[in-house]
């Protein structure tokens, strides 16, 4: 159902780096779960909520994001009135202004798209839900801002924003990466605010010479603003580090988690690639693995995730590993606890072994 809201996705997070996976792309554009980029989950949540205008704020490394988002058609956001807008600061270099320009993209977007509410979301969480309940509670409680949280506590490590709330759910305090967290209520980087209100707050910030815009900086204002904490109880994966990226991927082999993320009835949209179906050779062994279209499997794949177009040749063994798009694993290769980025080529007989907490990460396009 149509929701009178627009979406705003922050494609970067200045406190999250994913080793070589972050080098060529924004956090939002990091491949995840075989067919997707991380941003696909949040974009789909917005589209499934009935939102038809989404802005994506990217600070740098836009290319992957631009290539992935394209015209927005994969999310049905290729609309006459610009359903999907990339809002990097650069496009505002048309104005002569200085630092304030980094927010002018945001302001322009909010000004142009007249919806009552704005849903603002970070790019480091993966879940599958609509925002109808969040908006409903926000309205019912007449909050200034409503933020989603769950009870992950510090389980995924930093960054975290731990909330203290009163019995009615109003935020009384927030602690960032506290050594002794006062509760397990960790925000998940999604909030709703009225458009007019957001515009006022950003203008105020600019007037004060404060050009930083983030969900954290808004929650921090719990003294002046009525901030409501709303619990999200579904499956949620946080990607805060290579370690959590790896463990979040391995979590996908859990039936219940997969069920909640992919089979709840809300589709997760992504860019269409028109690959061939996956093909299994006569000899092969595949166990407990997720395999994408275009793969050709003639070797062994165990507890692993293969992205689209991956080849695993004869006598190769891929175990507890993640192999991204179009990578080629040659005959006799062994991979254990390895993350191969896109377009890697692993020569015959090579052996790479990492540890669960320290998977081996091979950067995009590497020939090993």
């Amino acid at each position: 159902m149509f929701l009178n809201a627009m979406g705003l996705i922050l494609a970067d997070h200045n406190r999250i780096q994913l080793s070589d996976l972050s080098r060529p792309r924004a956090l939002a554009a990091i491949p995840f779960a075989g067919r997707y980029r991380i941003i696909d989950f949040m974009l789909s949540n917005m589209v499934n909520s009935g939102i038809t205008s989404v802005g994506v704020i990217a600070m740098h490394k836009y290319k992957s994001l631009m290539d992935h988002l394209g015209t927005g058609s994969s999310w049905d956001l290729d609309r006459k009135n610009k359903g999907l807008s990339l809002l990097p600061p650069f496009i505002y270099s048309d104005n002569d202004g200085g630092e304030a320009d980094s927010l002018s993209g945001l302001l322009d977007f909010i000004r142009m798209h007249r919806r009552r509410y704005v849903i603002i979301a970070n790019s480091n969480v993966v879940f599958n839900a609509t925002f109808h309940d969040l908006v409903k509670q926000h309205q019912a409680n007449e909050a200034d801002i409503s933020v989603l949280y769950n009870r992950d506590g510090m389980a995924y490590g930093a960054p975290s924003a731990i909330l203290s709330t009163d019995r009615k759910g109003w935020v009384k305090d927030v602690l960032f990466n506290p050594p002794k967290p006062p509760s397990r209520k960790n925000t998940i980087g999604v909030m709703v605010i009225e458009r007019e209100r957001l515009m006022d707050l950003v203008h105020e910030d600019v007037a004060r010479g404060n050009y930083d815009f983030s969900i954290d900086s808004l929650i921090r204002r719990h003294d002046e603003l009525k901030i409501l904490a709303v619990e999200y109880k579904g499956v949620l994966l946080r990607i805060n580090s290579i370690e959590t990226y790896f463990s979040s991927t391995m979590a996908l082999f859990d039936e219940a988690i997969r069920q909640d993320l992919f089979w709840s009835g809300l589709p997760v949209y992504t860019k269409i690639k028109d690959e061939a179906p996956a093909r299994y050779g006569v000899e092969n062994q595949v166990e407990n693995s997720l395999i994408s279209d275009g793969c050709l499997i003639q070797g062994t794949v165990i507890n692993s995730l293969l992205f689209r177009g991956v080849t695993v040749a004869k006598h190769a063994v891929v175990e507890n590993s993640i192999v991204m798009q179009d990578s080629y694993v040659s005959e006799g290769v062994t991979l254990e606890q390895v993350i191969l980025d896109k377009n890697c080529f692993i020569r015959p007989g090579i052996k790479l072994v990492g540890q669960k907490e320290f998977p081996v990460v091979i950067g995009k396009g590497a020939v090993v």
Partner: protein
Amino acid sequence: MARTELVALILAGGQGSRLGVLTKYLAKPAVPFGSRYRIIDFPLSNCSNSGIETVGVLTQYRPLALNTYVGNGSPWDLDRNKGGTYILPPYQKTGHSDWYKGTANAIFQNIEFVDDWDPRYVLILSGDHVYKMDYARMLDTHIQKEADATLAVLEVPWHETSRFGIMTTDKQGRITAFEEKPEQATSNLASMGVYIFDWAVLRQALIDDEQDAASDHDFGKNVIPKMLRAGRRLQAHRFRGYWKEVGTIGSLWEANMDLLDRPQDINLRDRDWRIYSRNPVKPAHFVAASARVSNSAMTDGCRIYGTVEHSVLFNSVTVEAGAVVRDCILMPGVTVASGAVLNKCIVSFSTVIGSDVRAGADVPGHNRYTDHHYLSDGITVFERGLKIRDGAVIPGNCMVTYTEADDIIETRFRV
């Protein structure tokens, strides 16, 4: 307005009655093929890859599935402002209304559509052939040879010539004789049902043919032979590659198995000639620890806990633990419950095979479903939306439908 050089018209009207229950609810070109595709993806993708931008799809029988599938043409990059994809059903005119009477009559009834684009050439295609072909090269032949019509031809085995339109050509490839389904062929060059015509020539031929009360209004039977008799310049364009008419249960099964047994023949991984399709949005498929998959093709949304051998699975198929699927084609949404064993079966959309069902070529027993008109090669076909009761035993050569329901079947669809 700038003139359109070529308009493609895909004949997608036929029921395909030889496919039995598979085409009970949808037209033949909409039948699933090759794990991710519908048959019509092949001519549509060929058009797109050949640089053709204006495509009319002539429908008549049960067009809804096809209409919804083709939609605005965007999966094939055929959602153009100038050009694009058009569904062309028969329609009511002032005072009279006709269904399409034959392939030529179908085009005749759409003369106005073609005229609107004012093309120099038209390309006529069938909606039920599986092949990859560059029509731009065929057009080059047509232009270079200054032909009135050009027919794509391929060599077929001599014993199959009686199924095709067979032609004789001179050294330059000009067609000197054409016989539709000859008893005694003098050549093994068969027409693939792919024609390029000068529109002006075809337009007049169609108008003339329409006047001819004795005509069946069919390209192969009437229009082409008449053109040849009239001394028109008919050219053959030689095709060498994989081509299959998917008109029977047997040929549909074979063509699917060809993807496993002869993957290079119609290479679907070829990135310079992709076959596009419209697919539901599903996650990567999952193969459990208990699963065993070999010599098979499958796609997004499948969940495999049992054994799959030499089979083609479409999206969102579930094979439960202990189930065995061999030499099968399982269409989107099919579930095979635990302990069921299927051999050489084609199971249509969303049918659920109950636990411990045994079905297929190797199952002995009284055949309650055989319809000899359709089946003779041991294949068992299940209609869409059935629920097969646990433990049911269904032999080969069956066409299992709800209308023939007995103690073992119920349906999930509103009929």
